[in-house]
């Protein structure tokens, strides 16, 4: 045997299953691309720490670091049981927040996101929504709410 024996091949053509597999994966990628065209990129630098105090920073960066998109979708239009955040300026859509909205029409969103007020801290009422009071500064929460109110 020589030192440079070329490596041969058992089949010259492309296997049928290989073409089918490639087609399925490319189709999945295409569908993903076509259904996820809306949204904005987060900033690549200057992300404030969720546990940092003071300084509102960029709302998108706070939303990304706090992980809001994990439940409310990458473009905040809602995901499964979690509601859309794109209509916050018109009040809450969830029935359990209607009373809070009636009592605090201006600050209901800040109180809800902060989550430390006894009126909104019941786990059953929150339905999995974390309380961001311990991790975000009041200014950061206000920045996020102000940003959400601009979304349509």
């Amino acid at each position, binding site marked *: *045997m*020589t*030192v*440079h*024996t*070329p*490596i*041969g*091949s*058992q*089949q*010259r*053509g*492309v*296997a049928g299953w*290989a*073409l089918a*597999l*490639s087609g399925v*994966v*490319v189709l*999945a*990628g*295409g569908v*993903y*691309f076509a259904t*996820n*065209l*809306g*949204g*904005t*990129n*987060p*900033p*690549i*630098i200057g992300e404030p720490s*969720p*546990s940092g105090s003071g300084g509102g920073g960029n709302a*998108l960066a706070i939303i*990304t*670091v*706090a*992980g809001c*998109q*994990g*439940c409310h*979708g*990458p473009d905040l239009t809602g*995901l499964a049981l979690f509601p859309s955040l794109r209509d916050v300026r018109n009040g809450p859509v969830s029935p359990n927040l209607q009373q809070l909205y009636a009592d605090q029409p201006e600050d209901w969103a800040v109180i809800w996101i902060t*989550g430390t007020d006894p009126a909104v801290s019941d786990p059953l009422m929150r339905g999995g929504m*974390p*309380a*961001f*009071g*311990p*991790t*975000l500064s009041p200014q950061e929460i206000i920045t996020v709410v102000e940003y959400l109110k601009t979304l349509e």
Partner: protein
Amino acid sequence: MAVNRPPVNPKKLRPYDQPPKVRRSLIPSGPDSAATAFVVAGVVWLAAALGIGALWAALRVVPDLVVLSLDIPLLVVPDLLHVELSATTAGLGFWNALVFGWLGNALIGASLFAVTRLTGRRLHFPRMLFLAALLWNMGMLGGLAAVYVPILTAPGTLSAFPFAIDGALAPALLIVTASVLRTVLASPRSFPYPGVAFTLVGLLALLAAVGTGAAVETLDFFIAIDPTLRALWDALYVRMLIGLGFGGLTLGTLFYAVPRVTGNPLWSIGTAWLTWLLWAAFGSLALLGALEDTSIPFLITQAGNAAGLMLLAPALLAAANLLLTVSGRWTLLLSPGALAFGVVGVAFVAAAGLLGAIGALGNVHSFVRGTAWESGVLLWLTAGAGGFAALSVADHALPRLLHRDWRSGLLTSVALYGIFAGVAWAGFSLITGGLAEGSLRVLGTPADEAMGHLVWYALSAAAGFGLAALGGLASLVDLFLQYTTARRAAYAMPPEATTAMEPAGAGAAN
């Protein structure tokens, strides 16, 4: 007829067992000298990288601990040179030693070994190639020292080397790429083997990444570049380096190692070419996914993310093609050796491809962004897929490069199982730790409380790294014993670059 023989003086005869003195050149130019230098240096870097990795993993348990903080007064510069050993600097040392030291050396060495045997030609510019190996490793030593001096490091994990170091690595890559390209173009075969095509794209991507990286570093040193632009380049650089550069060298190496060590022909060359085509197209497009900033249109980033998802296709095709190639030789897997290393590498290619596709999905990406998940996937991709591909060719090539009769033994088993179990476990701990970190972030858990949960994942990863470091040490001892104790053996050599291809004489097949 009588023959006139000159009288023989026995005292002037050279003893039969003493070889004639040969003047050796300072820079070796033997057919495999550069490949030998790269692969041997790679094994040394493997042990070093995994050792630093174990230290890094241990320091992650107590992230605020600074083990060493030293100020060195410089006579020429009034400022003090601050040297620091902490989780941050050890992390930089680990990733750079692993990627540039171990993978860079071993995969480049494996590529040189494979290309010369696949094209049937010795590589062009052998002396320059040996110099490239020296340059690469001297640059790496300087770079590894620099990462412990915070004032010298640039931002980013794999872009932390100062511009002078990138300036040493780039010419080394240029020499290697030029030599491989010239050798492939001079090959009598009109169409290269798919493994060579993977290697070529990988080398070109590495050269583009490191070369442009050196230019950006230099520019940033003299005229400060906009931080956002710099951060975007760093993200693009890492993706080009790992996805296209080392990804190409990994697949090229596996497409050589698996058929060669099994002695089987490749299962399907057409499927291999389809794999190459999909990988080159989607791998290039996936670079756009790294451009994640408010200044970049979301559409462009999403196109890159979709291509990242589609990279699953070439990963699965390569894994299936190579596993079908092993068909009929499965018993070879029962003993540790080149095939076992290669098959583990193939498994990591498939696993990393799957995790990469999952991580490219928008929801998952925003959930795990900035967590240990990213380190875990990178570990499986580099130390797993790339590392085992390199170990496979190293196990096959080292006896041939060092001219030693050496069979895999106990130390090979320790290296195989130690590194495999260690890397798999450490990667799994980092990935699950990243998922836990993402969950805690969504739940709004305070940082101190979150750290209490995550410390268990960090401890688990440290145990995995410790095991892998043991395997790395076994590889180094195995290499040392092979060189010092094994008896010499002759192996066939590729013909000179300028001579016609001819069958080699005695010796084992390569």
